[in-house]
């Protein structure tokens, strides 16, 4: 496998081409509807991806919010590009040792799926030829771009897609790596390191959906496939693996098709609605009931290869069904899954006769209420079936929540790019680069090495702190005199495992640096033990007004060494027979009991010490 990553990170600098904030909103205060057409670029070629989207003939409904202005609605020309966002992109470029362009030109990338009100996404190449070294391996960074984010989809109903324009125009930095990644786990590491670099600029948005990864995957003999919008880093591995598996299966199907002399379907699609008059259930029922269209297409030599035996979920039938879906249908039926799904064996025989199928031939059926969608779907299936004989088509695929992927559209070409003449180009002069170079943040790997060395922490904890973006807070708290390992444990384990706050608790104090400082001080004073930190934080989340009260509500009062010694004494008294009998070996069974009593109120080490001493005293004083 050869894979490249594209990491897209939203910036918090405000929008790229207007003065609106980089913020989402739940308040919709205006709606409008639009239609989009595929239009030619400089040379009047229409891009295949753009034409495909436009052919769906959809209406787009846009929701505007109080955070938006006329620019996002394509009602006012874009303002000059946000200089802060350009600075962040240049900063990242320098951190990745890339070569910034002498002059930045904003381009329009035609995207007529409705996600951009203008029908294009504005994008600019910022720098080229960067590199990233990770665990001793060098990855090339061919391009760093700055582009505007798209509107977010909020709904879909018959013939209409609904988008909210709050996200439209938020700056996105796109970092692309070369095809040097050879495993899913590597993809994940590279994505995380790029994410860390991006966060180091301190100008990025945080939270779900603010960083997105596309994965460009190709396998030997396969084609380049772009997986768009992998939101959860941990799934990258799975998508890469799934894609590798899908391509492997499809290539083996291709070889099987070739070996048996299968050929591209050239027969006309045939209207078969009348054969299914009796169908009352299954995918065909709706079309039959509404006197719609069931079209059949013979696939010469495809029998048995649409759903080959075995566990693999990746098979040709699904690829064909994806095409029908992209054309607006719910899917299709193919010969390898029939009879079944509401279709009787006798009907299958009739279909085979009507389509003139020989034994090795397969077929597909599509059904729709209207002729146009049925024809669009069957023609898309025809093209895809023919491609199955060649290999893997280059395409854009959507990642699904279960780790699989689904066809979304053809891979767009260079014909979809033309200049955004409403925005003046930006000269990148030496002075600007000098200013940015002077304010470069510490590089992540240098930062990790420095922290690990100066605080004696294991590299893995430092990496975790960096992943969680807690290094700054770590240094701050340790700087106040707290013990480094304790602070690291608090930030990497205790805090992340805390229950999220509930809406009911409005008065809960924010868990900020000051509060953590107070909390650590309380532990150091012996108010309660470090094991009590989690319960105290929980009590604070649940509404306790301060650390002291939280400790009380968590049942942690803190005990003195004298109290602990008395507690151990009493325990030993209660178990005198065993202590006399087993001496020091009584420690293990009794330690559990004492922990139950004293946990969180005093350090665990002290508890063990107190018990050992109490046992020793009793064994020593006992009569022989």
């Amino acid at each position, binding site marked *: 496998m050869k894979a490249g990553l594209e990491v897209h990170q939203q910036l918090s600098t405000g929008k790229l081409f207007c003065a609106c904030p980089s913020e989402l909103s739940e308040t919709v205060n205006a709606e409008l509807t639009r*239609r989009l057409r595929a*239009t030619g670029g400089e040379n009047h070629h229409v891009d295949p991806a753009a034409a495909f989207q436009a052919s769906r003939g959809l209406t787009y409904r846009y929701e505007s919010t109080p955070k938006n202005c006329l620019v996002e609605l394509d009602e006012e020309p874009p303002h000059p590009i946000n200089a802060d966002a350009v600075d962040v992109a240049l900063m990242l470029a320098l951190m990745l040792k890339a070569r910034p362009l002498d002059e930045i030109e904003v381009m329009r990338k035609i995207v007529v799926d409705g996600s951009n009100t*203008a029908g294009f996404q504005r994008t600019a190449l910022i720098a080229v030829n960067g590199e990233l070294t990770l665990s001793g391996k060098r990855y090339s960074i061919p391009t760093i771009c700055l582009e505007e984010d798209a509107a977010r989809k909020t709904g879909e109903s018959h013939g209409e897609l609904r988008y909210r324009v709050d996200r439209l125009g938020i700056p996105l930095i796109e970092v692309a790596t070369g095809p040097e990644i050879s495993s899913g786990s590597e993809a994940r590491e590279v994505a995380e390191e790029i994410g860390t670099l991006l966060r180091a600029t301190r100008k990025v948005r945080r939270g779900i959906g603010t960083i997105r990864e596309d994965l460009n995957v190709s396998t030997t003999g396969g084609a380049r496939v772009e997986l768009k919008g992998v939101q959860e880093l941990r799934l990258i591995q799975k998508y890469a693996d799934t894609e590798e598996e899908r391509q492997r299966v499809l290539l083996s199907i291709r070889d099987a098709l070739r070996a048996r002399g299968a050929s591209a379907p050239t027969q006309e699609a045939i209207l078969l609605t009348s054969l299914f008059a009796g169908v009352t259930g299954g995918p065909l029922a709706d079309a039959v009931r509404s006197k719609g269209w069931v079209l059949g297409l013979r696939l010469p030599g495809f029998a048995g290869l649409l759903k080959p035996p075995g566990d693999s979920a990746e098979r040709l039938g699904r690829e064909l069904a994806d095409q029908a879906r992209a054309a607006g249908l719910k899917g299709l039926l193919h010969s390898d899954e029939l009879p079944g799904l509401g279709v009787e064996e006798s009907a299958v025989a009739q279909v085979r006769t009507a389509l003139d199928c020989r034994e090795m031939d397969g077929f597909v059926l599509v059904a729709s209420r209207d002729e146009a969608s049925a024809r669009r779907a069957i023609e898309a299936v025809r093209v895809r079936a023919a491609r199955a004989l060649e290999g893997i088509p280059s395409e854009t695929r959507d990642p699904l929540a279960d780790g699989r992927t689904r066809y979304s559209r053809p891979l767009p070409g260079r014909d979809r790019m033309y200049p955004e003449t409403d925005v003046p180009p930006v000269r990148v002069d030496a002075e600007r680069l000098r200013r940015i170079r002077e304010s470069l943040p510490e590089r992540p790997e240098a930062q990790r090495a420095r922290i690990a060395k100066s605080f004696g922490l294991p590299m893995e904890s430092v990496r975790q702190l960096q992943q969680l973006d807690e290094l700054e807070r770590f240094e701050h708290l340790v700087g106040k005199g707290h013990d480094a390992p304790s602070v690291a444990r608090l930030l990497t384990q205790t805090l992340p495992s805390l229950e999220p706050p509930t809406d009911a608790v409005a008065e809960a104090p924010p868990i900020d640096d000051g509060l953590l400082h107070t909390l650590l001080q309380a532990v150091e004073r012996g108010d309660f033990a470090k094991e009590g930190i989690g319960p105290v934080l929980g009590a604070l989340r649940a509404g306790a007004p301060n650390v002291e009260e939280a400790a009380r509500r968590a049942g942690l009062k803190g005990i003195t060494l004298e109290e602990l010694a008395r507690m151990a004494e009493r325990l030993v008294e209660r178990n005198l027979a065993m202590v006399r009998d087993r001496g020091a070996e009584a420690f293990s069974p009794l330690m559990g009991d004492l922990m139950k009593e004293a946990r969180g109120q005093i350090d665990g080490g002290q508890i063990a010490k107190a018990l050992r001493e109490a046992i020793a005293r009793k064994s020593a004083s006992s009569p022989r």
Partner: protein
Amino acid sequence: MGRRVRITGADGQEWEGTLVPSHELLGARIVQLKLESGYNIGVRVDPSAQLHVLPSDEPPAAEPGPDTNGEPKTSGSAARGADPVHLLTTGGTIASRVDYRTGGVRPVHDERGILAFFPDLEEGGPVHVVPVFDRLSEEIAPDDWSVLAGRVVEAFHQGAPGVVVAHGTDTLAYSAAALSFLLRDLPGPVVVVGAQRSPDRPSSDGFGNMTAAVRVARRGALSEVVVLMHEGLSDDRFAIHRATRVRKMHSSRRDAFQSRNGPALGWVEGDAIILTEPVRPRSLSSPRVEGRFDPRGALLWSHPGLTPERAERFVEGLRGVILAGTGLGHVSSVHLPWIRRAVAEGKVVLMTTQCLEGSVDPYVYATGRELLRAGVLYGGDLLPETAYVKLLWALGMSDQAHEVGRLLLEDRAGEFEPRHPPGAGA
């Protein structure tokens, strides 16, 4: 241009791509390259930089340019039999695309390009494209209005059921008003249409506007000059405005055109053309051009600090002036002396309001009464720009100031609205 090149900069960085025409805004010594990825970039070419022309496997990209065969064209795919709607093109955003030389948008020279841009245009019947001008609307002058009116008359004489005039939006309202004053006895509609976004953008409002305009020209039950543009920000409804009462009220919105002092005449939604206001119906009359424009008229926007000397110099050599006064139609009393002199010299002075909504009224304040006594005519709710166009036309109709004044105050093309119901404003 259009050659594949490799540029090696002073720092050793190599760039490969296709040379594209440079932007006017680009810095000195910057050449623009289109990379294989489709991105354009600017590369600084220092004296030490090297440039190699690379072999190209495809012919250089043709620069969009004049490609006209000189003949008006009717698409062969259109339904035969019906008389074609005539589409007069003048340039402007609606017929523009990106110009890679200047970086801005510029008009399409090729009328076939228009039909290529608007593939749905002929769905209801044939359209006959007649290129008249090839200019952005700020370059269109009063003489051009008369040429345009002549072409409209010609189109009707050739049997067109209606005429569409595609025009840049900046001065669209002036041209539309001019056609209203020039054209007499129209048999069908003249629909002036524009776009706020050029049709090389997938989101252009031009597609919807143009299709709706052709629809009104073909089937609309009226015989007036109207302006058709987006009613709101959505692509589903298109307002039909009376040409003498419409104004561009926003520099960029799709719904920039608004009827003033009353509602629009109606709208187009899908196939439906809905007229809610009284209009002049279609007739069998034979259209003609009546009058011409005398350029010795002007429009003066009054403002605090405007000195009478400057104002008087402004009206030198003119036969008439439209004042866009404040409020109910006022200018500072310091202007009374030159106004009296101008009127005495036979100049026509007509007052309108820069409020753009509501009528002028000379009787409410003393200033108004003084201006009236000085010989200023009060133009009711005439829009300043409409009044200006009408002044040029009226000056062209008569040498006599009193006759010019009479024509100015007489309703000719629905430019006055005597009733202003509440809530009827735009």
